[in-house]
């Protein structure tokens, strides 16, 4: 199976993000790390590749800088990477990202595109659905327990109440949930091999995509401070009130 895994390099979540005062874009340092969610996607891709004697190709729309995050995914075992490195793509919205990634995977060829559910820096959570629309293939979202069949892929799709088992013909786009698999550690050998694995660089123009963003961020406000919680005084029947509250938020 020819597996395309879309990955994103993001600023290290351990350090506070800074926004550009003018356009409100995240200021990206030279050293970015692999988004944790994407490590799950890489893990799922590697497992499918191992089961089907397939290959894993990484796709990343990444501004120029160190390839630390991409190397991390290559060290886990991915075979190669395609990097769309283009100044004109800075501050792209989700649709432009989806158009670029779709054009890249289409050009390279694929049976299955794997993405995370949403990135840990932008959180739009719509790129996989947009890609499936652009590529005109089914989208399997919120996926876990992914299994390859004969020209098909089967997943458990997480819902608010449980999960559905979904089977789709290939090619398809598949968005994994954060807990779908425990990502492997890169091995020492993997780290050493990663530096010699091919990383092809391309541009929006080479992919025939005009990078027009349809989105402008007009204002950014800090997250409101967390409001104080409700206090339930125990008069002997507080448990009834607590059960009612839990039912309201549909926990029970």
């Amino acid at each position, binding site marked *: 199976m020819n597996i395309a895994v879309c990955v994103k390099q993001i600023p290290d979540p351990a350090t506070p993000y800074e926004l550009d005062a003018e356009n409100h874009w995240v200021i990206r340092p030279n050293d970015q790390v692999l988004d944790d969610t994407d490590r799950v996607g890489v893990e799922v891709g590697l497992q499918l590749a191992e089961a089907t004697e397939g290959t894993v190709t990484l796709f990343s729309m990444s501004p120029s800088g160190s390839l*630390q995050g991409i*190397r*991390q995914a290559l*060290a886990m075992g991915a075979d190669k990477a395609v990097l769309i490195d283009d100044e004109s793509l800075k501050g792209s919205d989700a649709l432009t990202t989806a158009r670029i990634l779709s054009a890249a995977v289409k050009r390279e060829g694929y049976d299955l595109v794997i993405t995370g559910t949403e990135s840990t820096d932008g959180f739009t959570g719509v790129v996989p659905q947009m890609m499936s629309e652009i590529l005109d293939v089914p989208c399997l979202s919120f996926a876990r327990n992914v299994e390859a069949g004969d020209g098909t892929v089967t997943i458990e799709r997480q819902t608010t109440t449980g999960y559905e088992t979904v089977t789709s013909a290939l090619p398809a786009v598949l968005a994994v949930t954060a807990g779908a698999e425990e990502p492997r*550690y890169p*091995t*020492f*050998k993997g*780290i050493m091999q990663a*530096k010699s694995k091919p990383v092809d660089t391309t541009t929006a123009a080479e992919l025939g995509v005009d990078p027009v963003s349809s989105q402008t961020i007009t204002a950014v406000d800090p997250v409101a401070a967390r409001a104080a919680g409700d206090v339930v005084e125990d008069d002997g029947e507080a448990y009834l009130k607590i059960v009612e509250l839990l039912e309201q938020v549909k926990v029970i």
Partner: protein
Amino acid sequence: MEFDFTDEQTAVRAMVREFAQNRIAPQAEQWDMDHHFPVDIVTEMGELGLFGITADEEWGGAGADFTSLCIAIEELGRVDQSMAITLEAGVGLGINPIHEFGSDEQKQQWLPDLVAGRTLAGFGLTEPDAGSDAGATATRAELDGDEWVINGSKAFITNSGATNTSLVTITARTGPDEISTIIVPSGTEGFIVEPAYRKMGWHASDTHGLTFVDARVPKENLLGERGRGFHQFLSTLDDGRIAIAALAVGVLQACLDESLAYAKERTSFGKPIGSYQAIAFKIADLQMMTEAARLLVYRAAWLKDTGKQFKQEAAIAKLYATESAVSATREATQIFGGYGFMDETLVARHYRDAKILEIGEGTSEVQRLVISRGLGLPIR
């Protein structure tokens, strides 16, 4: 001048740090309490390739530089010195003598499993009556037909008696003025592994005394040339000094990190204790020691990796980093006050664990001897 680590070295640091945080840190306190050597975690370290960092690819290693190994040891040392010394001794004392001096047959027999971390090897040099004075080795090996017959005992041998230990390499007297190195497989009749020591620190590392009573091994188990034992272990120990110093850098970094966090959060007389010079200056000193030790260690590692002389620099790095680590654990414990004396505080464990760093693989006194001789002083 270039002080940056390479991309691969940075990636190794990230990988080992994450593994240490996720797999070792949560369990280290329990292992310490139980004096438990976690073979399962050692196996996982093997699967990550940590034991094979510097070994040739022919034996399953990565053929990478010594600096990368030091980085891995430093990162393990931050969270648990026992696992760091298990790796350090596993590579430096277990694998390296066979890798450096072994015959092709010996390498083929032992290295693939050792390099993959499936088995461990110990190096038996120290004896109850011969530590720094390794020339006083009293263990004897005599040829009887096609076999060496070994009698004697060894003391404080790391990785020598775990369920995954496959052999020990020992130094033994093979003539009146002759010391040689011989491989003794685990399970050899007459090779007795004594019960694990009760130690002040490093509770989760595997350390035993070894006794040999007419233990017989084939003649071919001689490692390298007969009579070259002294030379072999001296060369083994030079590398080990840098690696132990790297472990000490991990301890220093842990003391700095823990103390810094605690000084911001703990209040006394209405203010964080970090706002008092008595505490703040201690922490400033911790950073100074950490950075100075790190520079010495990685310069020595770089000298070794680039094929330059490093004997003097290795001794300086070992001496400074380990003595600093002992000072740092004492000061960090002081910063934590009463909590610093409690077993569940990381710095308390580091305090107990650190002392041996000034003793193992060449005491501070031996390092000063090496440095003095290197300066041309007519010292005995």
